């Protein structure tokens, strides 16, 4: 287990390094720079700026400097936010992004599994049809469409929830819904089908033959087995929450990391692009590791050696 974890952490660092390197060189390969979009600056000033941010140094030097800095968790200055560093932006934006992501995750996991269980238990009855219908919508409607839709109808039109902004708990409702709709739908579908499969297994019949009441059979015997395929979806799920977050923060004007990321691309704000990319890559790699550990928790047959037990 310890050996396995060590190996995984080393390979995770390797992945993050690859992401850093690729983004760095790709970004510099694209013509234009952070200050080229403005009205033409006098060459002297331009020179000054480039000097200040080391933009004239050889690329290799810039790259090595950058690696050195991020090793010390210093993501450098921002080009576009006067006098603030990328670390400042992180400190400001990350809590909001995490709050939104967390609420969306809980909503997706709880809502998705519950809808899946109910659909399976009421197979081919009204609750099943409703859950399947909602899941189909959730899977097929893109998050930006849903976000805009919720913002307009549930936000501006009915005033049930604030359509924009940040600060109170109710601000979270619409963005979290928009962000979690797709994973709720996927988890519902997965849970439903694996639950139906599990309920036909011999060990469920054994549990019944022991006289256990229905809720124990469902919660203790069926659900844990039914969740094994759902755990498989957790890797893509976290990736979705991270990327979906860009769109949702943008639409609902939430000053989180996602919004910084989107704006920084338009601005060619190299350090912010790099910083957020590294942050997201690190988060994703961490989540994937957690998912693998979660496997061993739900399924005792899996040992953390990457092999399945007999």
């Amino acid at each position, binding site marked *: 287990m310890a050996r396995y974890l060590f190996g995984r952490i080393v390979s995770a660092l390797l992945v993050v390094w690859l992401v850093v390197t690729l983004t760095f060189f790709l970004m510099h390969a694209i013509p234009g720079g952070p200050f080229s979009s403005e009205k033409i600056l006098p060459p002297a000033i331009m020179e000054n700026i480039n000097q200040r941010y080391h933009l004239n140094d050889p690329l290799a030097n810039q790259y090595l400097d950058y690696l050195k800095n991020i090793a010390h968790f210093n993501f450098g200055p921002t080009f576009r936010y006067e006098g603030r560093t990328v670390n400042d932006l992180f400190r400001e934006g990350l809590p909001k992004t995490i709050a939104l992501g967390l609420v969306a995750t809980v909503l997706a996991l709880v809502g998705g599994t519950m809808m899946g269980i109910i659909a399976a238990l009421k197979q081919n009855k009204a609750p099943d049809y409703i859950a399947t219908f909602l899941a189909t919508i959730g899977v097929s409607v893109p998050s930006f469409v849903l976000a805009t839709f919720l913002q307009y109808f549930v936000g501006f039109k009915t005033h049930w929830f604030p359509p924009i902004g940040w600060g109170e708990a109710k601000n979270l409702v619409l963005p979290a819904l928009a962000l979690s709709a797709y994973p709720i739908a996927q988890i519902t579908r997965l849970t439903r089908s694996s639950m139906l499969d599990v309920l036909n297994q011999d060990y469920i019949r054994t549990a019944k*033959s022991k*006289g*256990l009441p229905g809720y124990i059979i469902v919660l203790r015997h069926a659900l844990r087995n039914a969740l094994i395929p759902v755990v498989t979806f957790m890797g893509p799920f976290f990736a979705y929450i991270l990327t979906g977050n860009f769109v949702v923060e943008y639409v609902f004007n939430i000053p989180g990391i996602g919004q910084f990321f989107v704006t920084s691309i338009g601005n060619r704000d190299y350090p912010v692009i790099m910083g957020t990319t590294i942050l997201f890559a690190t988060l994703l790699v961490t989540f994937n590791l957690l998912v693998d550990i979660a496997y061993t928790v739900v399924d*005792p047959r899996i040992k953390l050696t990457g092999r399945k037990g007999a």
Partner: protein
Amino acid sequence: MQQLHHLLEVDNLSTSFFTYAGEVRAVSGVSFYIDEGEALGIVGESGCGKSVTVQSVMRLIPSPPGKIVSGQIRFLGQDLVKLPEKQMTTIRGKSMGMIFQDPMTSLNPVLTIGRQMTEVLQRHEGLGKQEAMDRAEKYLEMVGIPNCKRRLKQYPHEFSGGMRQRVMIAMALLCNPKLLIADEPTTALDVTIQAQILELMKDLKQKINTSIILITHDLGVVAGLCSRIIVMYGGKIVESGTVQDIYKSPQHPYTWGLLKSVPRLDALSRTKLVPIHGTPPDLLKPPVGCGFTARCAHAMKICAEQPPGITEINPGHQVACWLLHPDAPKSTFDEKGRVG
């Protein structure tokens, strides 16, 4: 000897599955009983309705599509057919336990053996965690599992097939049920393990006063354990009697066929196995007359036209076959397996 009140008395039980293709009459008009401390064997080819019969008794028929269409199942003074599901859960696992054919899939892969065993005791006897663990340990020991304490913390995949079946047996016996139903408990196991499990069941039968219904499609398996045998064919009982009745003077052509397909235990007289040729009747469209007509070497005109009535050869030995009609030609079965 028949007692006044049997432990379990199944009366005219019919269970069907209502599928898209129509009504599958898996069990039709089955009646039998079992007394306290007795072991009863149910034999018959696969698909003849053995599992559906005992699952009806346990009320474990998947519904839909399955349904007990008619009949009574009297157990401990109650008709289980009419019992609400909620009360049924207080009987299952407590007064009757069941073990299944495939020990590899019958235990929950994500729960420890200890958890799966103790939950029965917590449910039916309200035992605390430690007490339940102690009892579970005692029962694992009883079924011959070494290192029980450590084994309780393990998961099913850490056990071999034979060991899992022992766990299933221990688990079914935890609450000292009046009736243990074993549905082909050895079919999925290696021959040597089969013998061990049967030996264990014989041994347990001596020790505890539980009645046992043993299902098998192999007549050779029942003899050592059971005193009475029921032979099923096409969802009906075709012959029933004591082990002596069935082995020494079988009367139904289907029983003759089964006996001929049993491997002789003494290797010297090992004769060639003769499987019964032909296929069982289609239970979607059960034949009007005797279900065995198409495969029976002795079939007469009447066999296809009317179902045979039940003839009692001597007390307790019953046969459903036209050959036993006074006007029928004489056919008998001798011990070497020849039909004359």
